[in-house]
Structures are given as structure tokens and as C-alpha cells.
């Protein structure tokens, strides 16, 4: 039997948006730390609950006017009495009521049992995080927050998902993508590793080992997770763990590339589908600023060449959220190439994107900007360059169509070819090297499938054929700039620059 069919839960996509839920409960956004004592305070009609503690973990919740609701009993009794059956206990109920009615007072309550607390938190957190978004009025989201929330939601939804990597825990991630996750999910699910890329990769690549881990975890250290929340539709038949491996940068993945390619990518095929590897390798990729040759390069084409891997290249916050969620839910190994420079950039996001069920299809490109004169393909940071170039070109009367690839493997040949058949011209943009690059593949597919439609030679814009230099002026020359895209596009349109 094919495991994949059991593992894979079809996800909601843009074309199939989830039903919006009317919230009968107000948002829960809670501030709680592990430790003692517990302080509950009522400020402007909100209950703020927190543990004053020397530890650095904190989570934010707020209880808005939920007095009397059962959820609140559950929550408070979990905090107060540390025993589930006490929820039904009359004394506890009245204690809660007293508490909630007691308004302005600050209460100091003892708190001892983290595990039981964890049980309740496991149940409550996903509810809280899903409601949080509906109540949110924010329209902009940074890519960093998009990734963080996607990880958070997937971890909340599925206790088989955990994240592992260097400095992902106590340090909150080298680029703060995993911020807050350690406090929420604990060190068993946000695992700080020693600096050992190779081993952590291979260990987690194999579900057979994952099974063992899972079994042990269930039996010993994971009681509250195993008992916990059923999540956003991960089936009961689910067996393997779903590790998310963070590389501090993808440059470090070179230390483990054997296991990405030879262990993760090939296992499903070699085992004739018996052993699939639902793992995500993620981290920043591509050119960064001023960090020299070893820290600044794009691995898109490298991983894109390997059958058995899916290679995602998000650009916006929508991409980051939708694709990361898809990657985690996908039953195969996914290489998820982020971009350090985009982390801090904000993009507008629709409520649909913020829905915990939001997911993007793997293998579909997105037309970021419609146009009729020339097709520009780009991925990751280069999409923003291509869009800016398209704006400049607009002034010169060139109406460029910009395709955000989103996925290098599988490559969305249909969308690219359709676009080229419409515009008859093609410009490819990438940060990686030109030879055997992503652009080369795109050009080849267009020449194969749409040769007769081309009105001009294709233009390929890529990184200079040199290791990344350190000096800023040389570094700038080594990667495509907006002017390069404008110039090449004009060439493709037979306009003089």
C-alpha cells in the first residue's frame, strides 16, 4: 500500500478557499509563562494571565470577555487545578467564576505541573492561533512572520511536526524564524542540535527511525502531545514524524547534501514506494549582503536537478505561508529556499492567506503581473526586481508579464509556455549561475514546446560566473540588478536601451 495516499491530506488552495467561520468566541491571545507564580490581571476588560518567572519563555494570549464560557473554565482550571477532571468539579467552576468576576485584583496562584498544563495548552493553542487571525485587522505581514506562523500552525495542528536545527530553540533561530516556538512547544519539539548538519539530516530522513522515535516519545516523554489535539485534519492513520530541518543558511546544507540527495530524495524510489520521507529542509538561500563567497550563493538549480526532491522558492508572505504549509504536509522531501533579505519585508495578505487551512499547490507558478509584450520569469528576491523592472518598462510602453515561479521542481511548464505563447518573448532572471541554471531549463522548455511562438532570442539574466566577491562594488556587479532586467527586456523587445 502506498503510504503517500494515507499521509497526504488534500489541502485547500486558492481555488478552493476554506469556509470562513463565524466566531462565537472572542479571540484568545494569552500571555503565559512556565514557572510560578501565576498572575491574572484584568486590564480594560481583558484578562491577562502570566507567570512571573526567571525563564525566558513567554506566550501571549488575551482573554476578552469570555467569562462564563466553558473554554475559560477549561483554561483556568488547567492553570489552577492542574487536573482535567477538576474541570467538572463544582468547586473549580465556582473558583473560576469568582476569579473572573474578581476584576481588578491581581491574583497570585501556584502552578506546579507543566505536563498537565502542556496538555491543555496543546488543546488550546491551535484554537487560539486560528482565532487570532480572524480577529486580526493587520493587512501586512513580513515574510518572517509568515514563516513563523506557518510553522506554528502546522506544529499546533500536527504533533508529528517538529523542528530541528542549529540555534532554533533558545536563541529563537538565527534569523528569528522560530521565535516563540520553543516556549510554545518545548525543547522536545523545537530541538537545538549541536553543529552537526549531516547527522541530524540522516537521522530524520528515515521514517523507520522516526517510528522508533515516535514510539519512544509517545511512551515516555510526550504524554501530553500524544494525548493532544487532533489538528487541522491530519488523519488518524498518520504514522511517521514530520521533521522540519532548519539550515542556518542553505550554504550549510552542503555539509549534508549527501543525505538530502542520496538518503532523502531517493528512498521512496529505491524502496518502490514503501518508505516515503516527509521532511522539509528550509533556510535562507541566495545572495546575502557582504558575507563573502561561502555564505552567498543560490542553490536553486542544484536541488532543482534532483529527481525525488521538491524545490520551493517563496517570494512574498503569501508564498511563504502557503508553500511552507504545503511543504510540511507534503509526503516527500521538500527543499524550501527562503531569502535572508526578504525576511524583513512586508507584503499585504488577505484574510484567506491568514486562514490556518491556507495552502498553496506545489508545482504551480503565479502570474504576479499580467502583461502582453514580454514574459519575465523570476523566483525569490528576483521577483521583486522583475516587478520593479516591469514598472520602469511600463513607462517605456512595454507591458511585461512577470511570473513568480514559486516552485523550481516540479517546474510549472504550462504557465510559462502559455505566457510565452501570449507574449512571444522571454526573459529569465535568477541569482544563481547561468550555466545549467534555472533559466537554462526554462529556455529549453520554451524552445521545446513553443519554439514557433518566439519572436526574439530569449534573454537569460543570471549571477556572474564567479564566486561571490566581498567588496560591495564587486558584489553588486555579481548579481542581477533591476537595470540589467530592464536592459535585457528592451533587447528582447527590440527596443534600444
Amino acid at each position, binding site marked *: 500500500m502506498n503510504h503517500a495516499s494515507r499521509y497526504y491530506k488534500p489541502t485547500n488552495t486558492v481555488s478552493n478557499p476554506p469556509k470562513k467561520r463565524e466566531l462565537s468566541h472572542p479571540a484568545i491571545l494569552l500571555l503565559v509563562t512556565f514557572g510560578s507564580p501565576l498572575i491574572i490581571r484584568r486590564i480594560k476588560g481583558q484578562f491577562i494571565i502570566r507567570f512571573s518567572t526567571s525563564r525566558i519563555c513567554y506566550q501571549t494570549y488575551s482573554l476578552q470577555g469570555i467569562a462564563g464560557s466553558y473554554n475559560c473554565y477549561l483554561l483556568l482550571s488547567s492553570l489552577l487545578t492542574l487536573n482535567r477532571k477538576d474541570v467538572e468539579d463544582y468547586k473549580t467552576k465556582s473558583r473560576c467564576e469568582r476569579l473572573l468576576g474578581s476584576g481588578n485584583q491581581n491574583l497570585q496562584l501556584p502552578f506546579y505541573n507543566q505536563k498537565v498544563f502542556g496538555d491543555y495548552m496543546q488543546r488550546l493553542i491551535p484554537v487560539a492561533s486560528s482565532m487570532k487571525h480572524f480577529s486580526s485587522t493587520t493587512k501586512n505581514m513580513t515574510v518572517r512572520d509568515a514563516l513563523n506562523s506557518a510553522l506554528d500552525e502546522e506544529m499546533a495542528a500536527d504533533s508529528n511536526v517538529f523542528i530541528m536545527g542549529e540555534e532554533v530553540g533558545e536563541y529563537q533561530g538565527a534569523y528569528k524564524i522560530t521565535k516563540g516556538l520553543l516556549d510554545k512547544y518545548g525543547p522536545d519539539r523545537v530541538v537545538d542540535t*549541536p*553543529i552537526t548538519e549531516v547527522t541530524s539530516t540522516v537521522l530524520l530522513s528515515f521514517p523507520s527511525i522516526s517510528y522508533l522515535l515516535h514510539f519512544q516519545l509517545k511512551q515516555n516523554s510526550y504524554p501530553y502531545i500524544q494525548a493532544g489535539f487532533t489538528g487541522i485534519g491530519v488523519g488518524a492513520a498518520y504514522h511517521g514524524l514530520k521533521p522540519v530541518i532548519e539550515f542556518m543558511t542553505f550554504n*550549510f546544507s552542503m555539509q549534508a547534501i549527501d543525505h538530502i540527495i542520496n538518503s532523502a530524495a531517493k528512498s521512496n524510489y529505491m524502496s518502490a514506494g514503501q518508505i516515503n520521507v516527509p521532511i522539509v529542509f528550509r533556510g535562507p538561500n541566495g545572495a546575502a549582503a*557582504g558575507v*563573502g563567497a*561561502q555564505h552567498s550563493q543560490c542553490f536553486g538549480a542544484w536541488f532543482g536537478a534532483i529527481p525525488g526532491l521538491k524545490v520551493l522558492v517563496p517570494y512574498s508572505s503569501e508564498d511563504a505561508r502557503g508553500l511552507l504549509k504545503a511543504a510540511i504536509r507534503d509526503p516527500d522531501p521538500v527543499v524550501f529556499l527562503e531569502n535572508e533579505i526578504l525576511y524583513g519585508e512586508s507584503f499585504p495578505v488577505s484574510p484567506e492567506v491568514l486562514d490556518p487551512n491556507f495552502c498553496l499547490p506545489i508545482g504551480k507558478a503565479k502570474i504576479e503581473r499580467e502583461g502582453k509584450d514580454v514574459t519575465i520569469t523570476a523566483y525569490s528576491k528576483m521577483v521583486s526586481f522583475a516587478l520593479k523592472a516591469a514598472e520602469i518598462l511600463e513607462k517605456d510602453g512595454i507591458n511585461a508579464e512577470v511570473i513568480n515561479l514559486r516552485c523550481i521542481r516540479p517546474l510549472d511548464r504550462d504557465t510559462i509556455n502559455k505566457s510565452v505563447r501570449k507574449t512571444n518573448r522571454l526573459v529569465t532572471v535568477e541569482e544563481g549561475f547561468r550555466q545549467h541554471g534555472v533559466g537554462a531549463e526554462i529556455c529549453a522548455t520554451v524552445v521545446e514546446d513553443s519554439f514557433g511562438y518566439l519572436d526574439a532570442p530569449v534573454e537569460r539574466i543570471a549571477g556572474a560566473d564567479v564566486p561571490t566577491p566581498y*567588496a560591495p*562594488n564587486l558584489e553588486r556587479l555579481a548579481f542581477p540588478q533591476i537595470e540589467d532586467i530592464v536592459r535585457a527586456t528592451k533587447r528582447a523587445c527590440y527596443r534600444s536601451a
Partner: protein
Amino acid sequence: MAFAGIKVIQPLALHASSSDPYNRAAKSIATPSPFLGSTRTLRINQSLPIALSRPASSIVAAVSDVFKEKKLKSTSDLLLTKEEGLEVYEDMILGRAFEDMCAQMYYRGKMFGFVHLYNGQEAVSSGFIKLLKKEDSVVSTYRDHVHALSKGVPARAVMSELFGKKTGCCRGQGGSMHMFSAEHNVLGGFAFIGEGIPVATGAAFSSKYRREVLKQADCDHVTLAFFGDGTCNNGQFFECLNMAALWKLPIIFVVENNLWAIGMSHLRSTSDPEIWKKGPAFGMPGVHVDGMDVLKVREVAKEAIGRARRGEGPTLVECETYRFRGHSLADPDELRDPAEKARYAARDPITGLKKYLIENKLATEADLKAIEKKIDEVVEEAVEFADESPAPSRSQLLENVFADPRGFGIGPDGSYRCEDPKFTEGTAQLCFDVEMKNLMLNMHLQG
């Protein structure tokens, strides 16, 4: 003095015995100086220190506290001369002043990317590298500025590199994490954990190869591999310990154990935090030394370098030290306990050496002040030099990708090298970037 209490045991070939016909055959085939691949003979040719009857029971002992106990007992038995003392002091001050200046320049936007500073660890760099000859090699990590300085790369060349200028020791192409100097045998700063160790092992291999295969009898060059505590959990570390011990390579593995990766404590990441113990496991001495005391470091270094130079094989030295700043200048450094920081700050290696020099009347307060003043000027001058230097020219972008851009067989003018009589005579220049060489020479002459 050999490492007190340390027994070094030669690895023993299994089933080895003098009557083994295979070994006799190997012995007769092998060259007089058996190199790699004939390790079996190598061992048989040596006097076996251990009786064959107990092959597996050999224990390699290494005592970590030996140097702590060997505390400087009397002032008459000084650990270094006045000149040495001042040289080491100057080097440490240079390291500190240079790094402080780097921080300033980074915040002023003069340098970019990741800049990892060495503050606090100076005793290791100065303690080891100042004992080296120019031909000896140093392989470093991303925290490499001070290793390069100690090895003799002029401060202005390093500063200029950090500014991304053409006069930098790598013409602005390397950057903070990638300091190279062929002249001073700084074989590179390597940005990734563990990456430098195999390179260093290879450098040590080449010394042995030159001596034993190419018969360059005077090639007793030693390689120092610097790396941190985090690296000791990386596979490359273990692989290289094995090869270095197996082939008795002239290398010293210097662990700068500053107790922290970025925000990952050494104790949280390592099953057995005593790194020095991993040396004996591979058949080489493992030594633990207080990396905040340059005199102790120097003494251990002297012994280890001597051992390597004499062809007695590698040593693993764990220097327990501390970085006074964050992992890099981008690190907010929030996870380390302020009390821990204060404890190590109180043991500043520079203050320690200063005290020793003055107490033992090796230097006066004025001598040291003069050195500090001199170094301030050197660093100021380096900044001025770097600031005034030109940025790399545009054409430089495409240079240096290959040593021989046209590929072997085709000369720079496009002619076939096989048609050049010098080529068959073996006197043709094959791959040589003359301009680069001249530039480096000029720079160092100025420096």
C-alpha cells in the same frame, strides 16, 4: 619536557607479526621511507612499544590538569624572556585593539556582513602562532582576523580587506571570514564549521609528503588548525583526528573552547564536554589548558609544536577561553549569563600577562604603555590606509576564478602550449597570475 603523565601509544596493526609473509613482502616492496598506503610496513618497521599479546588493552592517558599544577613556582624559572614577553604582549594588544576598531568601523558601515571578533581569546592566537616559523601554516575559521595578524599579515592588509578594498590581503574578494595569505601561510579563514580541519590536515600531509617522498629533508613545517568547541561535534573533526594520528602528521588541533556556539552552550550540545579526551581516543595526546593564560598556552604549544616538528605526530589541545563579545557583531548576545561574562572578563588574558611581566620585572609599566601606544598608531594607520585605498576595479570581478583561465594547454595569448618549446622542456610558466603576485609583494613591502 614531554607532556607529563601522557603516554603516547602507536596504533597497532592487527595480526601483525614479523613472521607474517604478507608483511615481509610488503616490506621488501615498500620504498625505504614508507608513506601512506603502506602503513602496515610503517608500523612493523618501528619498534613496537606494546607487547603483541595485549593489543587491545593499551590505554592512552592524558592529564589535563598538569599545567594547572605546574603553576609558576618561582620567579627564577621564568617562562619566557623579556623579548618574548614583549612580543607576545604586543601581539595580544594588536589583536585586541584591531578587533575593537573593527567593531567601530562595522557600526560606521565601513565593513559588511558578518564580522566575528576575537576579543578575549588572544592568549590562544598569540600563545600558539608566535612560536611558528613563517613557513608553518595556520588554518582558521570565520573568526580569523587575529590569527592572520599573529601570523604576520600586516594590519593594514587585513583592515583593507575588511573594508573591501583592492589593497586588502585578498584584494577585497575574501572578506572578514576569508583571510588568506600565501606569503604568511595563512591558508584561509573558513566560514563553515569543521571545514578548515581537513584543509589543515592536508597542509600537514604536504609537509610530510615533501619530507618523505620529495626528500626535502628540511621540510619540518607544522600546521595549526584552529576551531571552536562547536566544531568538535562535527564529523570532519573526528575523521581528521583519525587520519592525522594514523599518518603521524605534523599538525596541532587547537580547540578554542569559548564555551558557546552562537546561543548554544557547549554543555548543552556535547555529550562529554571535555574535548581534550578525544585525542587519546585516536592515539594522540590530548591536553587541556587554561586559554585565558597565555603563558600556559605557550608552554603547551611549545611542546606540541616541537612534537609535530620532530615527526612525532599530532596533538589535540583544548584551550578553555571565552569571547568577550557576541558571536558576531550581529549577535545580540542575550543568552550568556552576565555573571559568567564577568567571571571571564576578570580573567582577561592581557591583564594577566601584564601582571606577570611587571611582577617578574620583565617589563616596566612604561614599556607596556609604549607598546600600547605603538599599536594604537598601527591600527589607526591601518584604518587610514584602508579608507584611502581604492575599491576593486570593475574588471576584477571576473579575475581569479581560475589560476589558468584558458585551461591547461592553451596559453594566455591563445597559442597551443605544446607548440612552445619551453613547454616540453618544462620551463614554461603554466599558471601564474603575475599581476597578483606583484601586487601582493608590493603591498607587503609597504606593510
